[in-house]
């Protein structure tokens, strides 16, 4: 052994820790447990191959994720960190349902608001045919221009039908 302290992997594997040891930057000698756990699950040669396939700047993150996975596997030999993935996926599904419910509530309340606003603005005798339309436009922040009746009103259906459509004329067209 040289004058340098061997890294955790070389200590555990009982070998000389050379200057170019692939493990030395990521498994310092005082963190024996980290290497022990990845060696137990993945094996030193597999870890070495995985690190060699990566550029140097990505190796620290790779080591951290390998330690995480190995720890999860030792704690739960059946599911490893797949157990955590399933748990999180269930949480996501539940939250998505909660969001849909909350959004449906908003739609329902918006409908109720529009009905309430229309009820307030509609006069009792019903003489103004465009009351609801104007109330809704007001709610939506739109501006409509009152044009002469003969220019804008179209009748649909039979004479007995009171349905008319009103053409909105945006202010920008004037």
């Amino acid at each position, binding site marked *: 052994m040289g004058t340098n302290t061997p890294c955790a992997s070389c200590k555990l594997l009982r070998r000389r820790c050379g200057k170019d040891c692939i493990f030395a930057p990521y498994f310092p000698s005082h963190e024996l447990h980290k290497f022990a756990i990845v060696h137990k699950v993945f094996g030193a040669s597999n870890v070495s191959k995985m690190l060699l396939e990566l550029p140097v700047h990505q190796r620290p993150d790779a080591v951290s994720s390998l330690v995480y996975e190995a720890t999860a596997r030792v704690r739960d030999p059946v599911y490893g960190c797949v*157990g955590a*993935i399933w748990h999180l996926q269930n*949480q996501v599904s539940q939250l998505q349902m909660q969001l849909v419910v909350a959004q449906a*509530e908003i739609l329902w309340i918006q409908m109720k608001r529009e009905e*309430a606003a229309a009820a307030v603005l509609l006069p009792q005798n019903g003489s103004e045919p465009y009351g609801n339309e104007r109330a809704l436009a007001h709610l939506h922040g739109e501006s409509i221009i009152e044009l002469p009746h003969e220019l804008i009103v179209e009748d649909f259906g039979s004479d007995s039908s009171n349905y008319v459509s009103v053409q909105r004329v945006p202010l920008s067209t004037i």
Partner: protein
Amino acid sequence: MPIGKFMMSGAGSRCAACRYLRRRCSKDCIFSPHFPSSNPQRFAYVHRIYGASNVAKMLQRVSEFERSHAADSLHLEAKCRVEDPVYGCVGLISRLQRQIHNLESEIAMTRALVMMYESSLDRRKGSANGH
């Protein structure tokens, strides 16, 4: 090539692990129930990440009933690691955690809007009744 070297166990063919490792597949092969020859990729992933002997040790560590679940999870983790050599399935965990955080924020905002609309609706009803 001597035929005896590739003696089949029973009436079936070798499992994917024994095919990959080029060895005899015995009746009590620990891999064969979980790595069928119809899916060679499944064993290829776990062998690449864990190695055959580590997989065998991990399967032996759990009860027979739980081995299929263990094999499935090992396969999933190995596949994630092959697809993402830096983060493996830890990358998926991070993404799910971020998704949960975003959903919780959105739910909180939506519920705040619901409360705001409900109180404005109550005010409108109140003013309508007052007339």
